[in-house]
């Protein structure tokens, strides 16, 4: 069952432009010029119940605009959106009960209040009876391990603790879909890992659909089974994480420590990435050369240590961004 359905969705912004300097500013007052920026260009996709989808792309690709149209914040110019069977442009209030949002760059908590008071406030916003809110706060504070600081004012919490509270605030009304926009922005690796584990646990326990945007490949790789890549307002890839790796991981990185220096040049299927005499790093395109071929070139008897790894997912995604521009 699809919980999000998007068909032919487009959004254009009218942006004022002006020439350089004071003269340009004065000219713009009397003769304003505008240009149309097509942020989202006729995109289609759907998301099934319980899925964890990464919606990614470079800056300015149109992902935030799309997420904002899905959550009633922006009105689309063209196309159809159904989120939990509702039209976000027409059923804003009804939809708000069904979805949760957490924008990493925008805080929704009152900083002078404790997380507990904030959660009670959010409970009132979503018309949840007091006993139910109390129960929910207890349950979520256990799941997200908030007990230690649930009564400390939000302004005194660390960023990691605050983000956990932001997520809990967006879950207080048991949304069916959670939209996470850069949930781990600015967090250290340990806290990031912690947040990811908690999001996974939440998806497992409540079957909440997760729609995530992030520039952090760790978020995408560790949380999501499906990736939608947008670039220049269009979907350039919509595939499972497994397929993405399978189709794009046709290059291997061979990192070898040698007994003796060898002279190796770029040739068909082999690219020298780093050559520091005894340490050599090469990239092997396995559609052209097999790994055993590459090893023969290095001479196995000459190798002290070797590491063969996949190209990092980050590089794969960056290449998709570049190639599909």
């Amino acid at each position, binding site marked *: 069952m699809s919980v999000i359905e998007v068909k032919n969705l487009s959004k254009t912004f009218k942006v004022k432009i002006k020439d350089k300097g004071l003269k340009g500013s004065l000219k713009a007052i009397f003769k304003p010029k505008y240009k149309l920026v097509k942020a989202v260009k006729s995109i289609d996709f759907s998301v099934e119940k319980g899925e964890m989808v990464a919606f990614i792309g470079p800056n300015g690709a149109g992902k935030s605009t799309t997420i904002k149209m899905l959550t009633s914040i922006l*009105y689309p110019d063209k196309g159809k959106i159904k989120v939990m069977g509702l039209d976000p442009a027409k059923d*804003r209030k009804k939809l*708000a009960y069904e979805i949760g949002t957490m924008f990493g760059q925008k805080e929704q908590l009152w900083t002078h209040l404790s997380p507990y008071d904030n959660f009670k406030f959010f409970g009132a916003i979503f018309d949840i009876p007091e006993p139910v809110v109390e129960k929910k706060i207890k349950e979520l504070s256990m799941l997200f391990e908030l007990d230690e600081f649930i009564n400390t004012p939000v*302004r005194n919490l660390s960023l990691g603790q605050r983000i956990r509270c932001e997520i809990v605030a967006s879950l207080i009304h048991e949304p069916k879909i959670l939209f996470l926009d850069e949930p781990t922005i600015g967090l250290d690796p340990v806290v990031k890992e912690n947040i990811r584990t908690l999001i996974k646990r939440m998806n497992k326990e409540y079957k909440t659909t997760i729609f995530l945007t992030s520039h952090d490949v760790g978020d995408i790789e560790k949380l999501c089974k499906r990736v939608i890549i947008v670039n220049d307002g269009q979907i350039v890839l919509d595939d499972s994480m497994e397929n993405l790796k399978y189709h794009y991981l046709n290059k291997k990185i061979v990192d070898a420590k040698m007994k003796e220096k060898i002279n190796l040049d770029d040739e068909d299927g082999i690219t020298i990435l780093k050559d520091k005499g005894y340490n050599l790093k090469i990239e092997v395109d396995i559609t052209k050369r097999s790994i055993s071929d590459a090893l023969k070139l290095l001479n196995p008897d000459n190798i002290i240590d070797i590491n063969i790894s996949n190209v990092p997912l980050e590089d794969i995604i960056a290449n998709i961004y570049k190639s599909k521009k």
Partner: protein
Amino acid sequence: MLTEVKKQLKVSLLSVKYGFMREALNKASLFSSIFFMIINNSCMIVQWIVLFSLKDNFGGYSFKEVLLLWGLAASTYGVSRFFFRKSFNLSQTIVSGALDNYIVQPKSVLLSAIISECEPSALGDIIFGYIMYFMYGFKIHTFILFTLFTITGGLMIVAVAVILGSLSFWLTNSDQIADVGNSLVTNFATYPDGIFKGVARMMLYTIIPVGITNFIPARAIISFNPTLLLINIGATILFILTAFAIFYRGLRRYSSSNLMNARV
């Protein structure tokens, strides 16, 4: 419908409570800002004492009636600033994309956006307003009228602020227009309406509705007239409905923003 209004009211009151709790964190600052606001307003009365020592009547108002006018001006201003402080920064809220948080909540976007902060010194204005009223002369029916006009006047000032702030959906840098407009509503409120003639007087009963928020209420308190009461209530409802209509019309053009934001 009624249940929805009740739920909205509950959340709005909670917002006011939490907004006030933030300001009350520093008690010394809270009480001194209230106290100094009363002193500040009192200084303005001194100029009227001097003027009335020269002449008995200004624009048809006696000294006590000017005190009543001042009382209404201060209390309506106080109500608007204490409960709806953010209506005066609506342009900034719209431009910075801070409406996002309110749009994803199942409550009125406009009310959530304008009720989330309060100005503690405005309590000083409300207290000062009532002191002026008591100096004018207490009577039970005029006290009820004064309170009613304080509420309608406060709501009217907020409605004007919302209309001016909503211009940001269409115009860039409209915060300057909003600032000037909001100042006009306050600045004209403390002068007797008899001194304004012609176009200026017409403006004070239309686009700068000081006539409706202050002059008509003052006349109704001095000498009760049900027509004046109905005009005040009717105009307030009209302005509120217009403010809602313009804001929600503009909301369709809202373009959000990715600026970093914190609710501090």
